[in-house]
């Protein structure tokens, strides 16, 4: 970062529909439809208590989820402390804490390691 000055552009990016993994997204939307209305304003991230302590970006996470790229989700979602500031800030009134809990649950549920137990 230090050698960059002024403006920068994000590298171009495509969503590969063959690799589009929306299993968790579908699960979340099914149980918390208010997540559909997210407009990625980033209010949640700005107020986040965990984000104040460490690099944790709930907006980025939700974007990743929507773009079918849940790779780093497991490591990221664990940072949330469920303090609840985000739900008070959200202009759409999204139940973000429920979204977080659903993602956590989905990660256990759809983990291939746990398949035997779930079936």
């Amino acid at each position, binding site marked *: 970062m230090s050698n960059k000055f002024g403006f920068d552009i994000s590298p171009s990016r495509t969503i590969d529909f063959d690799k589009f993994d929306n299993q968790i997204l579908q699960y979340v939307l099914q149980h918390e439809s208010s997540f559909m209305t997210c407009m990625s304003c980033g209010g949640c991230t700005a107020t986040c208590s965990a984000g104040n302590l460490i690099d944790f970006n709930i907006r980025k996470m939700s974007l990743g989820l929507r773009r079918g790229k849940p790779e780093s989700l497991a490591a990221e979602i664990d*940072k949330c402390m469920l*303090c609840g500031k985000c739900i008070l800030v959200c202009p759409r009134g999204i139940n973000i804490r*429920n979204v977080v809990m659903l993602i*956590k649950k989905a990660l256990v549920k759809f983990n291939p390691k746990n398949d035997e137990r779930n079936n």
Partner: protein
Amino acid sequence: MNEIISQYFTWPFTIGAIYLGIIVIIRFVRWVIGLSKIDKIRILKNVFTIKTWDSIKEAVSEGLLHRKIFKTNSLLGYMHMSLAFGWFLLIIIGHIETIYHEGTMAFPFYKSIFFRYFVHESTGNFIANLFSETMDLLLLFVLSGVFLAYYKRINSRIYGIKRTTKLKSGDKIALSALWLIFPLRLLAESFSAGIHNNGGFLTQLLGNLLYSSFSLEPAVDYMWLAYSMSLGFFFIALPNSRYMHIPTEILLIFLRKYGVNLKKRFNTYSQIQVFSCSRCGICLDSCQLMNAEIKNTQSVYVLKSIRNKSLTDETLFNCLLCGRCQNDCPVGIELNDLRITQRIESTFEYNSSYEYLEHTKAEKADVVYFAGCMTHLTPAIKKSMQYIFNYAGINYWFMDEDKAPCCGRPLMQMGQYDAAQKLIENNRQRIIESGAHTLVASCPICYKVFKEDYSLPHIKIMHHSEYLLDLVYKTKIPYFKPANRIIYHDPCELGRGSNIYEQPRELLGFYTQLIPIQAEKDRSYCCGGSLANIKIQMHEREKIMNSAINEYLKYEPDFLVTSCPLCKKTFAKNRELIVKDIAEIVCESLQNQYTELQKQNEVLLTQS
């Protein structure tokens, strides 16, 4: 045919009673064996102490007299009392009557139940007459309860119950049998009385009346058989119906008195509590989710789902954990903790580790101030507290001014106890390191967890309402009383959660005129903003909040005062009533006083 009936009519009762006895004993033994070792030691230690006597007293006052239901509604209380206590007396006095008549205690148990079938001679003996009149009086007492129970199905409003629970098929069988027992007993005894003249005032009157128009002899055995069968059906249906609460509640009362308590995981004591629920539906009426049309997640349904093993996350997590139902529950079931135990079971697979938490240095101070996440969204509260700290000249450290982990309570409400421990440990070390003697929290959610789950020896934990009262008493801050009429809203976690009702009221007494209201202290409302509910939608929260506000507006207060940042934030959405935190009230008063003093000084200066 009649001969067969007269020989075997006691069998349905006997079989039912034996079946019930065996099932209840098996369940009780299994439950008690399943308790933790410590709990078993507790029981052994306390069995031969005054606690057993206390339990017996409570079993009588709650299990038979239903004192707590009387508090909810006297008619409902009478209904339960007449059924439970009346039936109990019928059994006891019936037994004594049989002993008196037989002159021995060695007779089959069913004999006292069907006494008037077996004993026909009507003696002129005063005591025998007294017995039969007493038994009739008791029967009338029970019947009055039964008829109230019939009428409750038609009109439950006069019993103080707006809503009642839906019945399972097992419940329906047991309920019908229960409803039939006493009318059938009345008929059976009246038939016998009509034929043999062995009844009391009630059965004899009815018997004579019936006998004058019908011949009762062919029907009398069938009547007793029907009575016996209704008892048998009731006993057999009982273990799989809500009436299992009758024996279980007694066990619960004893275990509770012996000091057995709920654990973080579901165990047999939790099961005893689940089975103690009578599904009376009193918790439905106290639940504010009803205001938001959420009608199937109340405590009674959660307990029912636990019993049927059909609990879903949607039901489990749709609860504000405000504790209003727990407060009203006539059985005293720990509804909040039971629900949290279920949440722990539901989420234990994904507790976070929070490895990123770093130990940051603490500042040395006398008082640590922890505002809490919610207070950072209501900056007026923390600014007021800072003003007051400075005014009183306190050496304090604002622990989470810049950054600090959450207190851990919201995680606990979700059942994530292991995860919460990580946050608790991080905060705890910093608090201890500061060397402070007092920890002041502005948020009741934090306050509760500090008090209950942080082990902070030698540190006094205070909510800011307590602390400010302390400052007033120590004359560190002055007070004067403006004419503001205010209502104080008890936050759930501070009131029902931590039992702090008087300190905020005392403090407000110094600065305002407090209006007493109906829904205060342990009957207070939840604001609807509770973090414990992750399923409720924002518009539903607003409905709950608005219905509380509408109630408050009836008293025409100048402000609504609360002592929880989350309540303040929630109520602030309503434009009809200004809401302030208790710290703001104190701070404004200090500021006003200061400006007034300045004005006086100016006047004095210009005069001189």
